[in-house]
C-alpha cells in the first residue's frame, strides 16, 4: 500500500524498543548491584563465622603447642574450595601452621596484620584473634578468592542479558501489533490528504478509526474538506450565475448594437440620399446658399455614419474573441505604413523604425492599435514641413515590453492627458484635425484586453509620444532593425 517505509511506523517502533530496553536494563542493573552487595556481605559473614569456629577449635593446639593438631584443624578448610589459604600464628606472631600444607612461602603473610577484614588482590582476607579465657593465644589467617561471588555474578549477568534480549524481542512483536492502532489512522489520514492535494478531489473522506485525538483530527479534517467542497460548489455556482448574467447583458448589448447598426443607419442613409436627390432634382434652381445647406446635410449625414461605424467597431472590441499568436511588430508596422501611403502622398516624412520585439497577441487587434497610432502621427504632423515619426522599444523591465510611437507634430497640453483615451474625447477641433475621437479609446481598450497599458507624453506644438506596454511574459526579442526615410 505504501511504496516507501513510512517513517512514523519506524519512529514509533524505535521509541517503544528504546523505552522498553532502557527499563529492562535499569531493572537488571539495579538487581545486579543489589545482588553484588548482598552476596559480598554474606561471603564476609560466612568467612567471619568460619574464622571464629576454626579459631575456637585451634585454642587447644596453640595452648599445647601442637603443630600437628593445628595442621589437622586447618585441613578441614578443604570443605570450602574458595578458601585458598589459611594460617595460624602464635601470640608472638610466628607462623605456626598453614593450609594447604604445601603452600608456598610467599602466598601467606609472614606475620599477622591487624585484626579484621582486608580486601587484597581480588580476594578477601581476615585476621581472627584466637582467644581463651580472655587471653590471646595467637592469630588465625583465612583468605577467600571470592570465586563464588564472581561465578554467581557471571551467571547473573548472563541471565540479565538473556532477559534484556527476550524483553526486546517481546516488545518488538507486541509493539508492532499495538502501534498499528496509532500509526494506521494517521497513515490513512495522510493518504487522504495526499489524494486531496494530488487530485484536487474534495469529495474524498478519511475513515475515522478511533475515538481518540486522531479520531478528532480525522473528523476535523473531514469537516474542513466538506467546507472546502461546499465553498467550491458555491463558487462554481456563483461563477455560473455571473456568467449567465454577463451573457444576458452581452446579448442585450449585442441586440442594441445590431439595432443601432440597422435602424439608426437607415434614416441617416435617407437624409444623405435624399439630400443628393434634392440636389439632382432642384440643384439648378437653388442658389449658392441653398446648395451649401444641401451639402452640409450630406456631410453631416456622412459624418454621423462614420461615428456610428466607429462606435460599433469600438463596442465590438470588448466582445469579440481574442486569439493569441506570435506577432512580428516590424512586419505589422510595415504593412500599416503601406496602407497609409494615400495620406502621406506628397508629404515628406522621416520614419525611424527600430527593431521591435515579437509579441504575443491578437494580430488583427494589434494592427488596429498601431494603425491608429501611426495614422494619428501622420495626421498630427501634417503641418510640419519636416515630419518625423519614430518607433522603438523601450528598455524591457518590470515584466513588460514597452513600444513607443513618437512624432514631432501638434502635440497636446499634458493638462488634458487623462482625457486623451476617452471615447469621443478630442483635444483638437475637427476643422483643424478631423476625427471621431474613437481611435485612442480603441487603442486603450485593445491594449487593456491584452493585459497591458497605454499612456502618452507630449508638449504642445512640439510633438507627442505614445507608449504601449504589453506584458512581456509573452514577448521576446527579435532582430533585423530597419531604417527608412
Amino acid at each position, binding site marked *: 500500500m505504501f511504496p516507501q517505509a513510512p517513517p512514523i511506523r519506524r519512529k514509533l517502533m524505535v521509541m517503544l524498543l528504546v523505552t522498553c530496553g532502557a527499563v529492562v536494563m535499569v531493572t537488571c542493573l539495579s538487581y545486579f548491584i543489589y545482588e553484588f552487595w548482598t552476596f559480598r556481605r554474606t561471603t564476609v559473614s560466612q568467612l567471619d563465622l568460619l574464622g571464629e569456629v576454626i579459631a575456637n577449635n585451634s585454642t587447644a593446639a596453640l595452648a599445647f603447642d601442637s603443630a600437628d593438631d593445628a595442621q589437622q584443624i586447618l585441613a578441614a578448610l578443604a570443605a570450602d574450595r574458595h578458601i585458598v589459604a589459611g594460617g595460624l600464628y602464635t601470640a608472638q606472631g610466628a607462623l605456626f601452621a598453614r593450609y594447604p600444607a604445601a603452600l608456598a612461602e610467599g602466598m601467606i603473610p609472614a606475620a599477622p596484620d591487624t585484626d579484621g577484614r582486608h580486601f587484597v588482590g581480588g580476594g578477601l582476607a581476615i585476621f581472627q584473634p584466637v582467644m581463651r579465657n580472655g587471653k590471646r593465644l595467637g592469630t588465625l589467617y583465612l583468605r577467600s578468592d571470592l570465586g563464588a561471588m564472581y561465578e554467581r555474578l557471571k551467571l547473573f549477568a548472563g541471565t540479565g542479558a538473556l532477559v534484556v534480549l527476550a524483553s526486546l524481542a517481546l516488545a518488538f512483536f507486541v509493539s508492532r501489533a499495538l502501534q498499528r492502532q496509532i500509526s494506521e489512522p494517521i497513515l490513512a489520514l495522510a493518504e487522504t490528504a495526499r489524494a486531496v492535494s494530488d487530485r484536487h478531489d474534495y469529495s474524498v473522506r478519511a475513515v475515522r478509526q478511533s475515538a481518540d485525538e486522531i479520531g478528532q483530527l480525522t473528523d476535523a479534517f473531514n469537516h474542513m474538506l466538506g467546507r472546502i467542497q461546499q465553498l467550491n460548489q458555491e463558487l462554481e455556482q456563483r461563477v455560473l450565475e455571473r456568467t449567465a448574467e454577463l451573457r444576458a447583458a452581452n446579448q442585450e448589448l449585442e441586440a442594441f448594437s445590431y439595432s443601432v447598426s*440597422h435602424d439608426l443607419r437607415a434614416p441617416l*442613409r435617407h437624409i444623405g*440620399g435624399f439630400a*443628393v436627390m434634392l440636389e439632382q432634382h432642384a440643384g439648378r434652381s437653388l442658389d449658392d446658399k441653398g446648395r451649401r445647406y444641401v451639402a452640409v446635410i450630406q456631410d453631416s449625414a456622412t459624418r454621423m455614419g462614420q461615428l456610428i461605424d466607429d462606435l460599433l467597431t469600438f463596442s465590438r472590441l470588448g466582445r469579440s474573441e481574442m486569439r493569441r499568436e506570435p506577432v512580428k511588430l516590424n512586419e505589422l508596422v510595415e504593412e500599416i505604413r503601406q496602407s497609409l501611403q494615400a495620406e502621406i502622398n506628397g508629404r515628406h516624412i522621416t520614419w525611424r523604425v527600430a527593431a521591435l520585439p515579437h509579441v504575443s497577441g491578437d494580430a488583427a487587434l494589434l494592427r488596429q492599435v498601431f494603425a491608429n497610432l501611426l495614422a494619428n502621427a501622420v495626421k498630427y504632423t501634417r503641418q510640419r514641413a519636416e515630419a518625423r515619426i519614430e518607433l522603438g522599444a523601450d528598455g524591457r523591465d518590470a515584466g513588460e515590453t514597452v513600444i513607443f510611437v513618437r512624432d514631432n507634430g501638434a502635440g497636446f497640453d499634458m493638462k488634458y492627458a487623462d482625457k486623451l483615451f476617452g471615447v469621443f474625447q478630442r483635444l483638437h477641433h475637427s476643422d483643424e484635425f478631423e476625427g471621431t475621437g474613437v481611435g485612442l479609446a480603441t487603442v486603450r481598450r485593445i491594449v487593456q484586453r491584452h493585459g497591458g497599458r497605454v499612456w502618452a507624453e507630449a508638449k504642445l506644438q512640439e510633438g507627442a509620444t505614445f507608449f504601449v506596454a504589453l506584458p512581456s511574459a509573452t514577448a521576446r526579442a527579435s532582430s533585423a532593425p530597419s531604417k527608412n526615410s
Partner: protein
Amino acid sequence: MSEPKNILLAEDNPLDIEMTLNALQTNHLVNEVVVVRNGAEALDYLYARGAYAHRVAGDPALVLLDIKMPKVDGLEVLHCMKNDAKLRSIPVVMLTSSREESDLLQSYKLGTNAYVVKPVDFSSFIEAVTQLSIFWTVHNELPPRVAREAE
C-alpha cells in the same frame, strides 16, 4: 440573352426603394424592377403564386434582398431559394444596412452570391447598386435555361 432581364427588389423601407430605383434610373439601367415589400411576397413572386399567380413567366435575372423585413426576412428567402433546384442559379445579392458579422456569415453560409452593406453616403450607394446590377444582369452569364429546368 433575349429574355427580359428584370430585377426583383425585396425591400420593406419605401425610402430605400425610392433611392434604389433612383440610383438605377440615374444610370439608365433599363431593366424592369419588380418591387416586393417583404419576404413572403418575394417568394410568391418567385414561385408565381398568390398575387403573382398570373405574372409573365420567367425568373428574374437578379434578386436584391434586404435582410430585415417583416413576415419572412431576407435570410429565409435566401434559404428557400438556395434549397430549390429551380431557383438556386438565380444570383442573389444581400443588400442591407447591417455590417454585423453574424448576418454576413449566415448569408454566405446560405449561399448568397454577394453581400453589400448599403453605404450611408448616397454616391457610394448609387455606385454600389449600379455596379451590382450591371455585373449580374449584363456581364454575368447564367447557365442555359434548358439545363436549369432539367435539374
